[in-house]
């Protein structure tokens, strides 16, 4: 029997390389899925890896949390100061810049509050 291949569809699967948790702690959607604000998973809705701690979130989920002044710039899981690991080519540049800006503004707020001593410091872990 002779087979002529006229056309073919390539199919591939992918996963984000994460170590421990498989759900985003904020939206509770698996990391391989997309956050509740997006329609498609993948490069447009990337994962952000915590630098100080090992907690990961969808970029859009951690952005919305850090936009709250009540977040105090802390990781929602462990309440340490959240700092994103910035990987080249991950996330839209303007969104990554926004994330870093938020990290910065929380840092400034912390420094100012240290004088007034009113800010809850991250060593106050559960």
């Amino acid at each position, binding site marked *: 029997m002779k087979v002529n291949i006229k056309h073919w569809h390539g199919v591939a699967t992918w996963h984000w390389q994460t170590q421990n948790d498989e759900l985003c*702690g904020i*939206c509770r959607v698996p990391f391989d899925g997309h956050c*509740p604000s997006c329609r498609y998973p993948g490069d447009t809705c990337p994962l952000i890896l915590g630098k100080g701690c090992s907690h990961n979130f969808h970029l859009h989920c951690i952005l*919305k949390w850090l936009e709250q002044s009540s977040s105090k710039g802390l990781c929602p899981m462990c*309440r340490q100061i959240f700092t994103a690991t910035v990987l080249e080519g991950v996330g839209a540049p303007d969104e990554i810049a926004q994330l870093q800006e938020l990290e910065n503004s929380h840092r400034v707020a912390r420094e100012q509050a240290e004088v007034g001593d009113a800010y809850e410091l991250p060593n106050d872990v559960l």
Partner: protein
Amino acid sequence: MSTPAKRRLMRDFKRIQLDAPSGVSASPVPDNVMYWNAVIIGPADTPFEDGTFRLAMQFDEQYPNKPPLVKFLSTMFHPNVYATGELCLDILQNRWSPTYDVSSILTSIQSLLNDPNISSPANVEAANLYKDHRSQYVKRVRETVENSWNEDDSDEDEDGEDEEDDDE
């Protein structure tokens, strides 16, 4: 219309249906996933044992980045519950985290019942009795437990109808 908050609440609902922590139950009212009714059973071996305490939870579009408003509908006698039924609980205020969901909120409230925070009382009388006259405190709590059973019988159906009416 589906929004991020509503999608998250549907996940919360799925989770509490599949894997409810013992002694708590909750579900959104018909046609409004932003408003939930919940019941916490008083933990065994505490003065609250066997109470069926009803709560209302009101979420907004900022959830889970902002906590819901939670209040007891049942009459409570507890150092951290105001006469209005509102709670003084840090995780519902300044220690909120967007990783909490309906299950974990209710579990925290359940453990608050027998582990009150006396340093910042919402009900001063309850706090004082708890500290200095424990047997009187227990007596007052037991009264609310018995009340909670009666409320359940008389109010529940009416409430259900009211809420359905509101939504339509």
